[in-house]
Structures are given as structure tokens and as C-alpha cells.
């Protein structure tokens, strides 16, 4: 256990080496959050009558999804890729420590830093601006668009516990998903096009960009059978939309099923892939 904790701290240190990058990351997230908010607010302001979609729920969803994305992001794929390509993985494999566990420990360290430097400031910023703009009509010129969201509670507090449980599961699924794509490098050597391709599909289908409830019927149905929505759509809707307990448990069990399936698949790829590994030189 000790050694994994050490790897966690390494992960944290890796993130903190370039503080500039961390701030740039936060800044781009703030920009993106603002962009998303403006787009969806404008879309709703043009047509007030939309019985199928709830304005507040959608805006809440967009905000929370963007905030959640700061902790979900995972660069495990690139790490595995670099190691398989350079052959360094051979050294990792001799170590008396599980390779995948080590990756996970580092990823957790990585996330811890992002949580403190990105997620928390974003949560504070959104809460403060929403309260501030509404309280006494005080409006910052560049934030005036926010005022539309005043009086809006960001989350369903009584579902927070379920939401957090769901977030943990989503975190695991996201890690396994990145791991699996990374392991494909055993066969493909270069996986960035695959990564880019799946990244694009993932961005659309996971619900981080557009709430899945807005999808056309057919796409929505197809998506029900895919793992992507388990990462964003499920936890974020539990956090932002009021639901029956039964529906929540159903969603959470879908996530659990995907966690098990992806875990099994990653084990399989790992077993088979390791035999394919050829390290030249060294």
C-alpha cells in the first residue's frame, strides 16, 4: 500500500511541476464554462415554450458537467503509449509493483491536484457569481450573462450522496476506458488516431457537451447500450435532476455493470497484449 501512496504523491508532483499549465488549464475551463452557459442560455431565451426540455435543469446540467469534467479527465492513454513506444514498459514490468495499479495511483494523485486547483475554484466561482449577481443587482460587466441563472440552486442536495457514489463509479469507468485504449498500443503502436476518434465520439455521446436527453430518439436509444453515458450523463443527471430513488439505483447499477465489463476486458487485453510486446534493444 505504501508504495502506491508514494506513486500518488509522484502523480501530484508531476502536475505541480508546471504551475503555469495548471493555471492555464483553470482559465480555459472558466472560459469554456462561460461559453457553454451563454450558448444554452441563448438557445432557451429564443424559445421559452419547450415542454420537453426544462431550462433550469439543462443549465444546471451544463454547469455541473463542465465542473465534473475537470476531475474526470485522464491522460493514462498517453502515458501507456509513450511507455510502449519507447520500450520503457519493460522496466516497469520488472518492478515489484502492479503496472495498472501504479498508473491508477498516479492518476489519483493527478486528480487530487486538479480537484484543488481546478474543481474547487470553479465551484466557488460559479456559486459566488450566481449569488452575487442576483443579490442586489450588482453586475460585473463581463459576467452579466450569469444573472440569468440567479436563484438557481446548482445541485439537488438530497441526492448528493448518490451523486458522489455515482461520480466514484464514473471515475473508475473513465480510468478503465483510458487504460483499454492505451493498451491497444500493444497492437497498434500508435494509438493517437484511435484516441482522437474515440475522444470525439466520447465527447458527443458521454453528455459532457450536450445533455443526452436532447438527443434524437434513435441516437438516444443507441447510446443507452454504450458505456459513454456512464461517465457524464448518469452522475451529472443524478446531481442536477430530481429523480425517483428507483431510477437512481437503476442508473447506478448500469454503471456497476459497465465497471465490471470494462475491468474484465482490460484484464483480458493486458494478458494477451503482454505476450505481443516486443521491446527492441535495451
Amino acid at each position, binding site marked *: 500500500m505504501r508504495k502506491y501512496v508514494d506513486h500518488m504523491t509522484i502523480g501530484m508532483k508531476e502536475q505541480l511541476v508546471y504551475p503555469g499549465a495548471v493555471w492555464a488549464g483553470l482559465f480555459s475551463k472558466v472560459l469554456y464554462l462561460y461559453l457553454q452557459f*451563454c450558448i444554452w442560455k441563448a438557445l432557451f431565451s429564443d424559445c421559452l415554450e419547450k415542454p420537453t426540455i426544462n431550462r433550469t435543469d439543462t443549465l444546471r446540467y451544463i454547469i455541473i458537467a463542465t465542473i465534473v469534467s475537470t476531475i474526470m479527465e485522464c491522460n493514462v492513454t498517453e502515458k501507456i503509449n509513450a511507455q510502449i513506444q519507447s520500450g520503457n514498459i519493460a522496466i516497469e514490468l520488472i518492478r515489484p509493483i502492479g503496472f495498472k495499479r501504479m498508473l491508477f495511483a498516479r492518476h489519483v494523485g493527478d486528480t487530487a491536484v486538479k480537484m484543488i486547483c481546478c474543481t474547487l475554484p470553479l465551484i466557488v466561482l460559479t456559486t459566488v457569481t450566481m449569488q452575487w449577481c442576483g443579490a442586489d443587482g450588482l453586475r460585473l460587466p*463581463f459576467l452579466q450573462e450569469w444573472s440569468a441563472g440567479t436563484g438557481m440552486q446548482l445541485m439537488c442536495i438530497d441526492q448528493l450522496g448518490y451523486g458522489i457514489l455515482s461520480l466514484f463509479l464514473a471515475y473508475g469507468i473513465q480510468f478503465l476506458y483510458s487504460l483499454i485504449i492505451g493498451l491497444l498500443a500493444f497492437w497498434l503502436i500508435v494509438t493517437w*488516431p484511435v484516441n482522437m476518434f474515440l475522444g470525439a465520439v466520447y465527447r458527443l455521446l458521454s453528455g459532457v457537451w450536450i445533455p443526452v436527453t436532447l438527443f434524437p430518439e434513435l441516437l438516444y436509444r443507441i447510446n443507452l447500450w454504450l458505456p459513454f453515458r456512464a461517465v457524464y450523463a448518469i452522475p451529472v443527471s443524478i446531481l442536477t435532476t430530481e429523480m425517483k430513488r428507483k431510477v437512481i439505483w437503476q442508473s447506478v447499477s448500469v454503471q456497476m455493470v459497465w465497471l465490471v465489463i470494462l475491468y474484465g476486458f482490460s484484464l483480458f487485453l493486458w494478458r494477451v497484449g503482454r505476450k505481443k510486446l516486443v521491446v527492441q534493444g535495451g
Partner: protein
Amino acid sequence: MKYFRLYLRFVIVYMKGKLEYHFALLLELLANTILIGVYFAGFGVIFNQFETIAGWSKYEVLFMFTTSWLAYSFSCFFFWSPMRDMGELVRTGKLDLYLTRPVGPFVYLVLQQFQYTFLPRLFLSVFFWGYSMKKLQINWTKERVIFYCISLFAAFVIFSSITVITGAVSFWTVKSEEIVSLLTNNTYGLKNFCDYPLPIYGKGVQIVLTFAVPYAFTGYYPVAVLLGKGGADSYMGHLSPVIALVNGGIAYGLWRLGLRRYGSTGA
């Protein structure tokens, strides 16, 4: 003409190198096509539910941002990759190599590469551009065509200038990648703000996009004039060439200044 022949030779050499790994090349093209295709798909999904945004219909928005994307793809075709690599070239001192060539370093940097990865973006933009135009039934008078062509060229210059400025910045700070990513990242970049009509943002952001990083002149302002949209900012649409000129000047000056300042890191 001389440069054109040179470019042709460079493209052939570059592509020969790339075609050695034709599978990777194919994958790259495919991945880029899907990346851009998914963006359009997402756009379709959003506007499947909503008809308009800030008074713009979905085809008007599509026409606006494909106009901007067209200029952007062309611009990136020439300038994106060399300027992205500038940081690395300055850091490692490899820029020395380019200084000793019989053509100017800037020309050489631009000519020696061929960013085919922007081809899918270009083709898809052209496709949806044509599609939106067909839906819109714009009455193309002679003045409008000339106006549109000038605006499109201005947009090309604006995008290129911004790219060159970010590249030139690496003469001073060694890490310019973050600035590049902040502006042009496919998901988080500032450029994405221009895919939608400007009035949906707050005043502050509008000012930034108009004067600080004038992306708004690459699509929104001119197209608003063309489609008869904007009320107060209709004269802004005619300012694109001026903004392009100013930006081009800044980019040129900054590049010259940076190049003069460049002292090799030694090798």
C-alpha cells in the same frame, strides 16, 4: 512563381516521407474527419431541438461559422504547424538551420510542410458551407460577392496573423504552447466562441473578441452585414480589412523584432 515551384517540390518530398507510413496517414485523415464530423453532428443535435439562437436561424449560424472555418482551415494549412513548432525550434536552437537557408526563414518554414490533416476540416467546411448557402437563398449581387470575398480574405489574414503572433511570442517566452492551446484548442479554445453569434456573450467578452483577439471579424461581423442581421454593429462588418491590416502589421513587426532578438541557444 519561384516560391510556388519550391513549394511543389517540398510538398512532394514531404508527402513521400509521410506515405512511407501510409496506414498512419490514412488513420490521421480518418480521425480528423471524424473529429470534425462529430462537431457538426453535435451542432445538428443542438439545433434539432432549438430553431434559433439570438435571432439567427440554424442555417444562418452554420453559414457564419463555416465562413470562419474556411478561412481558418486555409490559414492553418500554411501557418499552424510552423508556428506551433516555433517554441521547440527556439528552445533547441534548431532555428539556426533555417537562418542559413537561401530563402527567408519564415518563407522556408511555411513552404517546407504540408498540413494535410486540415484537409478534412476544409472539405467538411466547404460541404456545409454550400449546404447552408443553398438553404439560405442569399441574393448574390455583384457588390455582395465582392464584399464577401474581401471579408473572407480578411478573415484568412486575421487568423494567420494571430497564429504568427503566437508563434513569434516564443522568441520571448520559451513556452508558447499554452497560449496556442488557449486560443485554438478544439474544445476549450477561445476560437470556439466565434461559432455562435456574438450578442449571446457579455459585453466584456464581446470586446475581447472584437479588439483583443479579433476573431469576431472572421465570421460574425461580415456575415451579419451580408444577411442583414446586426443593427448597431452593421458598420463593423466593413471593418474586417482594416482589422486584418492592423493585425498583419503587428504580426509582421513582432516576427521581425523576435528574429532580430533571437540568439541561438548554442549547439
